[in-house]
C-alpha cells in the first residue's frame, strides 16, 4: 500500500468560487484592506457558466467545509438566481425564492454551508464593475465626466455591447488615473477606490458570516 498516496489531511477547506481574474483580485485587495484572516481559498472558475456547470461537483468535494459563490447578476438578476437556486435544490438544499440583500447564506444540517453573492449587491442587475463603481469616492470629479463621455459615444461608433457600458466607463475612468490601465484589483490596492465604502463593508460582512471568521480565528 502506498502510504504517501493514501494519507491526507482531514481538515476541511473553505472555498470562494469567483467567475474571473478581476473578481479574484478585487477580493484579494479587499481582504488585505480589511485584514480578513485567510480561512478560505479563492477559486477562479474562469466563467459564470463554469461556476454553474461544476457547482454540483464542487459541493461533493470531500474536503469541503463552507462554499461561497460570487457571480454577476448580469441583465436578469431573477434568472441568474433561479439557475443557481435550481442547482442547489438538486444538490439537496432549501433555497429562498429570492436572494437576501445582505448576501444569502444557507445552513443545512449535514451539508456544507453555502453562501451566494450576486454582483453588484444582490438587488441590482449588473456585474463586478458596477460593484467597483460604487467604491468610487463620491466627490470624484472625473467619474461624472467618464460617464458623460461614454454616453456621448454614438451608436455607430460604439464597439461594445450595451451590457458592457459600465465596464467601458470604469476602464475609461481608470485610464485617466495616475497610472493609466491599472487593473481593478491593483486600482483598489492603490486607493483609486474607497475600500471603506458601505457596499464593500456589506460584502465583507457577508464573508465574515459565511466563513464564520470570528470563531475561526478565536481558535488557538
Amino acid at each position: 500500500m502506498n502510504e504517501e498516496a493514501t494519507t491526507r489531511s482531514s481538515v476541511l477547506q473553505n472555498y470562494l468560487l469567483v467567475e474571473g481574474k478581476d473578481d479574484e483580485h478585487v477580493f484579494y485587495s479587499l481582504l488585505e484592506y480589511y485584514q480578513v484572516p485567510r480561512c478560505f481559498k479563492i477559486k477562479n472558475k474562469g466563467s459564470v457558466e463554469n461556476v454553474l456547470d461544476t457547482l454540483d461537483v464542487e459541493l461533493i468535494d470531500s474536503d469541503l467545509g463552507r462554499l461561497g459563490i460570487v457571480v454577476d447578476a448580469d441583465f436578469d438578476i431573477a434568472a441568474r438566481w433561479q439557475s443557481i437556486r435550481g442547482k442547489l435544490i438538486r444538490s439537496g438544499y432549501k433555497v429562498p425564492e429570492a436572494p437576501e440583500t445582505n448576501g444569502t447564506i444557507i445552513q443545512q444540517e449535514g451539508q456544507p454551508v453555502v453562501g451566494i453573492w450576486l454582483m453588484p449587491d444582490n438587488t441590482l442587475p449588473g456585474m463586478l464593475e458596477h460593484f467597483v463603481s460604487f467604491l468610487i469616492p463620491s466627490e470624484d470629479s472625473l467619474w461624472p465626466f467618464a460617464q458623460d463621455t461614454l454616453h456621448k459615444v454614438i451608436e455607430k461608433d460604439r464597439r461594445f455591447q450595451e451590457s458592457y457600458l459600465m465596464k467601458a466607463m470604469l476602464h475609461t475612468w481608470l485610464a485617466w488615473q495616475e497610472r493609466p490601465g491599472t487593473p481593478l484589483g491593483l486600482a483598489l490596492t492603490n486607493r483609486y477606490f474607497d475600500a471603506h465604502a458601505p457596499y464593500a463593508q456589506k460584502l465583507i460582512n457577508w464573508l465574515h458570516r459565511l466563513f464564520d471568521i470570528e470563531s475561526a480565528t478565536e481558535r488557538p
Partner: protein
Amino acid sequence: MGNLILNTLEIRNFRAFELLRIEQLGRVNLITGKNNVGKTCLLEALQLYARKSSLPASIWKIVTARDKAKRRLVNTGDILAALRYLFHGRQEMRAHVKPIQISPIDSPEEMLSIAIDWPIAKTKNGSLHTHPLLPGEEYTTEHHLPRFIIQTEGSLFSYPLNPSFSQQIFRPSAKEMNCIFIPANGLREEQIIELWDGIALTNLEQEILAALRLIAPGVEGLNFVGSPTLDPGEREAIVKIANVNEPFPLSNLGDGMQRILGISLALANAKDGMLLIDEFENGLHYSVQADLWHLIFHIANRLNVQVFATTHNWNCIEAFQKAMQEAPQSNGFLIRLENKKGNSVSTLFDNRKLGIAARERIEVR
C-alpha cells in the same frame, strides 16, 4: 449489453451499515472512502446477495474469512458471538435483533433478509410443534437452539446455526449466480488454477493474455503445469515470452502479474455475474492501472459482468478517472462512502462528475 444485477443498493443492519443507500450503480463501480467506512463490508454484502441461493453456507464463509485465528465454531455461545459482528452495532444476539436486509432500493420482492430467531417448542395433542419466538415472548434455556430465518425471493427458510450444516436452500429453479471475490491479498493458487480450467482453450484465453501483456508485452502463451519441484497434483502458471525459447514461471514476473492474472481470470469466469475486488491497486503500478480498467470495462461488457472494486489509493482513482474519460460511453461510477455523525452516506461520481473533479481539482476521496 445485458442488464445489471443491481441498479441501486440498500443495505440494512449489516456490519458497519445501519442503513446504506446507493442511488445508482454502473457496470463497473469503484468504491472509495476512509478507513472503517465499510468498503469491504459492502463487498461482503454483495457476496451474500449474489450467493443467496447457497445460504447459509455463504454466511459462514464470510464470518470465517475475517477470522485470522480460524477459530472452530462449535458451541452455540461461540457461534452467536461470531455472528454479532455480522449484524450492525455488534449487539448481543438475542431474539428480535433487526434483520440484515440487502436489496435494490425500494424492491422488497428482491430482498434478501437474514435474521436469527429462537423457535419455541410446545407439546400439543401429544406431538411437538415449534414456532418462532413472538414479540413479547421471552427466550429461556429450555427452548430450542436459535436458527437462521432467511427470506429470499419471497420464500422463508429456517436453518440451524451450525457452520458445518452445509445444506443449501433448495429450489429447483434456482441457479447459482457467478460471484467471484478477490481479497486484498489475492486469490489462492488453487483458486487461480480452478479459474484457468474454467476458460482454458476458449477464446477468453486471448483476453487473459491481453491482460498479462499490459505488464509484459512479449507474453505469447500461458499454461498451468506440474513440475518435479511441486507436490504431486500441484500446478504452476508458466508463460511463453516472444524470442525466449523456454517457458518460465509467471511468478518470476512479479506481484503485478499475479494480480492481473487473478483479476482477468476471475472476470472471464464471472459471466452474467459479479466480480468483487478488494483493494484493487494491490501489486499494480500506477502506469498499468488505466489500461487494466479499459480491459475490465471491455470484458465486463462482453460477458455481462457487474464489477465492484474498493480502493483508498489516489493513483487508483486517477487511473479509473482516466479510463472513464477516454471512453465516454463507459458505464462506471466512483462511489465514496462516508460516515457522517454515525450515518453511512454514499456520494456518486459519474463520468461527467469525475471529469469535472479532475479538471477543477475537486477532492473525490
